[in-house]
């Protein structure tokens, strides 16, 4: 849900870092003794590491939304070669909130499908801040079928607050578009690997993440609803305290999702988050993509699809008790 697209250029919990940055800048300007400067820098990197270990879930959400955090197109530039973008769903239009196209990553030719939130104001507006419309999901599926036809593995990057909640989106069948993706992705006969690079907001995220392997960057979040949405419904009011409580309750961090068996792997981010060192993050992602595709590329298609089905089939926690003796008696029809 795009209700709160907060722009925390300066994250609240990073205040001590900003303080230190100022001190470092001062020291540099005044040309102070080298010893002082390097001790300040050391202090800074230590503090950054401390701040980012055991980040609270709500702060994780903020890092995941950082405006400088690399997006699909950024990663494509850093880790993809010969990117050949493919546009349009052949039915209604082209949705820039989902980027699709062929690229070379490592030794592999792949199809990349990824949410794009936008960097400039204009791009953000065009992309609806990463909230895709039905044509975005239909484009994604059309290109995935193309990849399937030619045996090209699929890599998806998830980064959305949620599918777009709007009048036009509803008219064009937002729910149907996502539902069809869920069904069809489950039977696509080429490897699919998905990585949540920022926000994994509900059905809008899952709509391109029914994969053989799913991973998350360490500071990404993935959940059924945004903390604000959850707080507004269950706590009756979305405010700072409730949002934070909802973020805790939703178990939306990478580590939580790993524990729940929803993802297979958590990819580490550089100290201070992906936005502080995009190149290093891209290198980590590239390694993961290459390893994952390599592990899947020789699996026979039928086995691949069956395993993917089982991967999702087993998700869910419930208990099975003795059913009541007398089945529920349905009333006679009038």
């Amino acid at each position, binding site marked *: 849900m795009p*209700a709160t697209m907060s722009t925390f250029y300066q994250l609240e919990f990073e205040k001590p870092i900003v303080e230190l940055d100022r001190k470092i800048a001062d020291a540099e300007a005044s040309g102070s003794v080298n010893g002082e400067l390097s001790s300040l820098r050391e202090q800074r990197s230590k503090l950054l590491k401390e701040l980012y270990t055991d980040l609270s879930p709500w702060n994780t959400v903020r890092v995941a939304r950082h405006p400088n955090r690399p997006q699909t197109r950024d990663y494509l530039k850093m880790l993809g070669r010969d990117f050949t973008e493919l546009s349009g769903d052949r039915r209604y239009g082209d949705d820039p909130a989902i980027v699709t196209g062929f690229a070379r990553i490592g030794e592999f030719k792949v199809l990349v499908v990824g949410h794009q939130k936008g960097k400039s104001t204009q791009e953000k507006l065009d992309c609806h801040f990463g909230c895709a419309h039905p044509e975005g999901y239909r484009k994604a599926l059309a290109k995935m079928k193309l990849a399937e036809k030619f045996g090209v593995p699929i890599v998806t990057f998830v980064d959305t607050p949620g599918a777009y909640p709007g009048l036009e989106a509803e008219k*064009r069948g937002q729910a149907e578009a996502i539902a069809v993706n869920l069904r069809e992705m*489950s039977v696509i006969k080429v490897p699919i690997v998905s990585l949540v690079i920022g926000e994994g907001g509900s059905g809008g995220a899952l709509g391109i993440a029914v994969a053989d392997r799913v991973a998350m960057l360490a500071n990404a979040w993935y*959940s*059924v609803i945004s903390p604000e*949405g959850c707080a507004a419904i269950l706590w009756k009011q979305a405010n700072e305290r409730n949002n934070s409580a909802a973020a805790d*309750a939703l178990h939306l961090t990478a580590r939580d999702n790993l524990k729940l068996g929803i993802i297979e792997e958590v990819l580490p981010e550089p100290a201070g988050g992906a936005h502080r060192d995009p190149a290093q993050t891209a290198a980590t992602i590239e390694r993961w993509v290459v390893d994952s595709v390599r592990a899947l590329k020789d699996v026979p298609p039928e086995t691949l699809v069956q395993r993917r089905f089982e991967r999702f089939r087993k998700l869910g*926690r419930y208990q099975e008790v003795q059913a009541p003796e007398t089945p529920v008696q349905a009333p006679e029809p009038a």
Partner: protein
Amino acid sequence: MTKAVVQSWTALRPARRTSVPEGSWLRCPSCAQMIYRRHMETNLHVCPECQHHFRIVASERVGQLVDPGSFQSEFDGLQSLDPLGFRDLKAYPDRVLAEQLKSGRPDAVLAGECFIKGRPAVLCCLDLGFMMGSMGSVVGEVVTRSVERALERGLPLVIVSCSGGARMQESGLSLMQMAKTSAALAKLDRAGLLFISVLTDPTTGGVTASFAMLGDVIIAEPKALIGFAGPRVIQQTLRQDLPEGFQRSEFLRECGLVDRVVHRHELRNEIARLIDYTGG
């Protein structure tokens, strides 16, 4: 649950008026006519004046659709756990227990094998009376098992949806039920079996964006609210009033998203006829 409840005067008041049988008359929320409850109920919970379709619980729905005595309920032993230790204003297990006591159902779904006008089928009905019919692990599992039962027995599948969406209290696991149910339906689809999805008031969120929109034939009850995002969320996003009838069944038919809008009186006949047409 043992919990001291301080009752307010307004909560106590209705109990004191014992001379009039409780709620034998009610006001139709659509046409504002006073209607006799018994009339409305024998009319399949449809207002005799304006045809407003009242929301009904799953057991009532089953009773309206199946041949008398033919319904064999299944998967009733499945119950929610609390994988996240979820707590909002209330702890999730307490909420589940309260909803079980209130609704008399283990969770928000009732499924089983049945006959509909003599045609065997698997029927699965969501229940609004239990946490707004929300889909957590249990609902997802029962829907999936229903699909698998239809597949196993080569039977047509009918799912009657009404739901607020995915259940927040199971977070990511609820989300995964969307993928799980949809993946199971891919198998049913490839096996060439019929899936009739019936959408009733309201069907929104993760339920709409998964199995509910995947019917070979999609039927909606008149004027049911059906959508991905709720109207309030859309209104907040757009900051403008929504057109009359937006996200209602008739609107969805106009948009090409549902096949038929069917009056509750005709639902049973229509389902039977569709089963015949598709060779079920």
